[in-house]
């Protein structure tokens, strides 16, 4: 498993100001974890996500959003904890 420099946890909907600032602060060895309203980014046609992207599966299920593995890897809460442990730094937006 590649090490993660910064894990960005984003629970804001795509239209929220913090959403843009989070995306613009992503760097190559970083990872993005979409939770709560953040998972809407996976069905927003106005957006293309790049790099290492994860999404929390209970939030995907609640919103009936099909996980698209080519865009984001769906993980559960335990994997989320493991992700935060693996990252050198975590930012919650």
């Amino acid at each position, binding site marked *: 498993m590649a090490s993660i420099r910064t894990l960005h946890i984003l629970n804001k*909907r795509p239209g929220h100001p913090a959403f843009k600032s989070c995306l613009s602060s992503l760097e190559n060895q970083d990872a993005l974890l979409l939770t709560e*309203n953040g998972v809407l980014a996976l069905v927003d046609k106005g957006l293309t996500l790049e790099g290492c992207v994860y999404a929390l599966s209970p939030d995907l299920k*609640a*919103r009936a959003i099909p996980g698209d593995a080519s865009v984001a890897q769906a993980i559960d809460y335990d994997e989320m904890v493991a992700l935060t442990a693996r990252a050198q730094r975590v930012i919650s937006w």
Partner: protein
Amino acid sequence: MKTLVIMNQAPYGDWSGREALDMAFSLAAFDQPVALLFTGDGVNWLRREQEAAAISQKAVDRNLAAATIFGVTALYADQQSCHRFGLDQHTMIAGITLADTNAGLLGEYDHVISLS
């Protein structure tokens, strides 16, 4: 006195979307003509097979499906927002009327309420 309640909050992220729904249903319960317009992030309330138990919340698709029985006159969804979030008749719950919101839909209502 016709009322239109605008649902533009993303589902489950906070409570304001659910509060707007409760308000609409209470208006309907008191025989006030009320309709709902889902727009922006709010159209995501309309996706089928939501399993909100996964985040220990209640799904709303059953209340929405029964909305007309409760007296809600119409459930509108903004076309552009549906397109943006990849929603169509197959992925949305039944009973939704697609609407072009800048075509004067709001003009038909005496009260337009948005809790965003």
